[in-house]
């Protein structure tokens, strides 16, 4: 995880960008360098020189929404443009390819997809490629943020150019040694093959191929394979870490052996944001078995012990006087009232045409990754080292450095593979807290949040309220208005580094501006519904929130898909036919047609069962979902079958893409039917999976089919990580509505407090 080759980076980063000028690949251009190193090392800039807007083609046009022209991924790609941070690929003397990935892996399959891109361009077996998560590298600025389904989109070009340059260098080296033309050589399985069957492995060539000085490579030397020649990219491939996972060898943050690091847990306040006033029984807790230290930090009182079991006992035994929190006394009813009051008004009068009005409520939802918030911190007088699952490690490093009063370069932040995220690990709450505890306790610590704390004090998707009005006349939808009110989503991680993170903390523009930008660049309607407007109003409550897989789209587009079904019914059309006639493109209709056909849309089902369908398009990708639900008992519904079609333009790993869609489906089943958080007197009631009802095997369909649509000529990969949720939310809600003859308006639909909350 450590082992960053700072020397190579510094040299590469210091090289100018003059020379042969940037090369174009598709819409984007990249600069590639040969890096001075003992074995072959090649580097490419991540930021693109240009990104062309996509054009919306509308038969009955709706003016393009901002997200049609420039989505959040484009914003991030453009924001990264001026940076000099480079992606570095090295080949060692065993022929093993090492690629340091400035992103986080949390189960989304990124390391596998990137390894496939590298192996493809290098014509070397996938097993020869190692992908290592990069430490925080501040020079990467905006280019070390893992989010917005952006990783493959932003890395597809640069990773391939880097690997292509390495391959070209290997071929040129063999050609020189054999005194033949490079065009007469080929590469198979990491071995350069020449006339008469001469062979030289990458392992044997890498020293001779190495650069003596860092220099920019010309365009021919970094030209990538035509996509029509791909033999691995586009082929379903299993995860590169699958064997480590099934044998228990995959290491997460608290599985690391950091010498001397002691378990630490924190007793947290009875309400969100509460403060520590005093500890009444510190001496008693210090005397408990295994307890090493008790220290108060901003977020609570930490107990450091020999084992987590002892730290847990110690924290439970603490008696603490707490100060007020940030939302004391506030409960769901009060939050609902604030949301209704904050919902921007609808403006189209419903008097002259037929119209459909609907209002929706969505509850708070925990991210609840199975690996709770955790970090290892070793803070010394003059330096600090942090290990944690981090999607924005640069801003983590910068914030922790400022907090500890250390220069940024004295804080090393190692990014560790995470046990799930769903948006949670955009924030570095555990890393910062662990650093504070380590500093106060003067020892390295391994911090783990208890599940109860993780669910109650960890971050959550904000509750939202929605007002939708669609007017229609003579078979056309004339206007479609959607007004959303949301408890503030915390975007104070910025674009992953300190400048925008600080900008997002400004009182006037700040987080609210970033929220509006995010809303406008991610949420759009895929339908030709005439005048379409979508507006966000935020309620700035200080609660621990964060983007949750698909940010605003799960609720916003989910609600719209419900209204689409109701519009179809009013206009006496079949929901699939209705969508077909209002979708904007053939590729949109293709995924819908696929699920309708494969899922036998319209087939007869017994009483209490029904089908439902939903569509969503985001981050240059599109998907349709068809489900069947058994809602004979409306309190115990079960999705029995799901058929999903997904078109990401160009799938890199269809097997990983299917997994992402399966995950999005399960998220939608959970949050639509049963999983949410109740807020009571300033704290979520739910404290574990026995109370926050995330789906289990017996909530999950026994029949799931995911169809990955073939690559589109000339297309680059679209986003995939968040895509699956919104369409499935719509499909499940629509199926539930049809099966039960109800119009669900509040989600999750079954949301009783069916448990005794844990003590605060």
């Amino acid at each position, binding site marked *: 995880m450590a082992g960053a080759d700072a020397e190579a980076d510094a040299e590469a980063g210091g090289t100018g960008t003059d020379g042969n000028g940037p090369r174009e690949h598709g819409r984007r251009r990249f600069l590639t360098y040969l890096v001075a190193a003992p074995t072959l090392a090649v580097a490419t800039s991540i930021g693109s020189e240009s990104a062309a807007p996509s054009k919306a083609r509308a038969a009955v046009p709706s003016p393009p929404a901002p997200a049609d022209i420039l989505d959040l991924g484009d914003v991030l790609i453009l924001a990264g443009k001026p940076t000099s941070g480079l992606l570095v690929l090295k080949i060692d003397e065993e022929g093993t390819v090492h690629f340091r990935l400035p992103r986080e892996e949390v*189960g989304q*399959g990124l390391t596998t997809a990137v390894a496939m891109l590298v192996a493809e361009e290098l014509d070397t077996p996938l097993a020869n490629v190692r992908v290592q998560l990069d430490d925080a590298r501040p020079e990467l600025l905006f280019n070390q943020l893992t989010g917005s389904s952006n990783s493959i989109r932003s890395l597809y070009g640069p990773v391939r150019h880097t690997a292509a340059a390495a391959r070209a260098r290997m071929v040129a080296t063999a050609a020189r040694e054999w005194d033949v033309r490079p065009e007469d050589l080929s590469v198979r399985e990491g071995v350069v093959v020449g006339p008469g069957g001469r062979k030289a492995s990458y392992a044997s060539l890498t020293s001779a191929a190495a650069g003596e000085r860092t220099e920019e490579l010309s365009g021919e030397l970094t030209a990538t394979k035509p996509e029509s020649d791909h033999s691995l990219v586009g082929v379903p491939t*299993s*995860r590169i*870490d*699958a*064997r*480590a*996972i*099934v*044998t*228990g*060898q*995959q*290491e*997460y943050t*608290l*599985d690391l*052996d950091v010498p001397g690091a002691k*378990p630490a847990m924190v007793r947290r306040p009875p309400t969100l944001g509460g403060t520590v006033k005093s500890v009444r029984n510190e001496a008693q807790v210090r005397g408990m*078995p295994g307890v090493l230290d008790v220290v108060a930090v901003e977020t609570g009182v930490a107990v450091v012990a*020999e*084992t*987590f*079991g*002892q730290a*847990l006992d110690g924290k439970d035994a603490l008696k603490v006087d707490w100060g007020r929190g940030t939302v004391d006394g506030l409960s769901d009813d009060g939050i609902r009232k604030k949301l209704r009051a904050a919902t921007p008004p609808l403006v189209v009068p419903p008097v002259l045409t037929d119209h459909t009005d609907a209002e929706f409520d969505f509850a708070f939802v925990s991210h*609840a*990754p*199975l*690996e*709770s918030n955790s970090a290892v911190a070793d803070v010394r007088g003059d330096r600090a080292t942090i290990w944690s699952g981090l999607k924005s490690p640069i801003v983590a490093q910068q914030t922790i450095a400022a907090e500890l009063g250390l220069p940024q370069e004295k804080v090393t932040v190692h990014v560790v*593979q*995470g*046990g*799930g*995220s*769903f948006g949670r690990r955009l924030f570095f709450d555990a890393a910062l807290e662990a650093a504070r505890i380590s500093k106060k306790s003067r020892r390295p610590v391994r911090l*783990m949040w208890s*599940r109860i704390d993780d669910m109650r004090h960890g971050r959550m998707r904000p509750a939202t309220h929605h007002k939708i009005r669609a007017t229609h006349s003579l078979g056309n939808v004339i206007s479609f208005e959607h007004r959303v009110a949301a408890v503030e989503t915390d975007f104070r991680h910025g674009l992953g580094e300190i400048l925008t993170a600080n900008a997002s903390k400004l009182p006037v523009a700040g987080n609210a501006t970033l929220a509006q930008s995010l809303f406008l660049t991610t949420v759009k309607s895929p339908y030709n519904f005439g005048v379409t407007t979508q507006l966000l109003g935020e309620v700035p409550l200080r609660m621990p929130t964060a983007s949750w897989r698909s940010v605003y789209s799960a609720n916003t587009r989910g609600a719209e898909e419900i209204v689409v079904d109701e519009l179809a019914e009013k206009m006496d059309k079949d929901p699939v036919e209705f969508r077909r006639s209002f979708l904007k493109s053939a590729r949109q209709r293709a995924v819908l047609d696929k699920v309708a056909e494969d899922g036998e849309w319209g087939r007869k089902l017994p009483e209490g069962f029904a089908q439902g369908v939903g569509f969503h398009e985001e981050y240059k990708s599109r998907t349709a979902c068809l489900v069947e639900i058994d809602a004979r008992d409306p309190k115990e519904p079960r999705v029995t079958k799901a058929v999903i079609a997904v078109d990401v333009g160009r799938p890199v790993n269809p*097997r990983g893409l299917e*997994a992402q869609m*399966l*995950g*999005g*489906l*399960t*998220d939608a089943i*959970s949050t639509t039917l049963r999983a949410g958080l109740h807020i009571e007197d300033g704290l979520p009631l739910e404290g*574990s*999976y*026995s109370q926050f009802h*995330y*789906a*289990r*095997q*017996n909530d*999950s369909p*026994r029949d*799931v089919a995911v169809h990955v649509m073939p690559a589109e000529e000339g297309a680059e990969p679209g986003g995939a990580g968040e895509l699956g949720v919104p369409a499935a939310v719509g499909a499940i809600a629509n199926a539930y509505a049809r099966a039960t003859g109800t119009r669900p308006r509040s989600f999750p639909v079954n949301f009783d407090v069916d448990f005794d909350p844990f003590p605060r």
Partner: protein
Amino acid sequence: MPTHTFSVNGKSVTVDALDDMPLLWVLRDMLGVRGPKYGCGIDVCKACTSHLDGRAVNPCVVPVSEADGGDVTTIEGLADGDTLHPVQEAWLEEDVAQCGYCQPGQIMAAVALLRETKNPSDEDIDAIANVCRCGTYFRIREAIKKAASMMG
């Protein structure tokens, strides 16, 4: 401090710990056996699922004293050297894992099920209550069925 002797993955171990210390922390913090994961500490997520004398248990709620004289098997002890257990093989073939954090527990639960029930029905599989927050349930189901057929 009481002493407890039992075997972990075929090796005899002796630890000094209070009788009621959960086995999970003995394994993870005292013995460095870190395949079993913490997810809830109260036997609801089941990420730590391991075997005690061949049956599935959740070490987060098993006092170490209950392990005395027993055989504990964790995910690390499931394979026979480099030869994976058929359930692990099936997990690879179905590419079940996403983040992977719950999968050691899922696999140990599946192995325990298949030990009792050679050809589990969908209802039998539904009874596995281990949480997978990535939502891999369908692939888990397919992998269990594949493992059942591999184990014949």
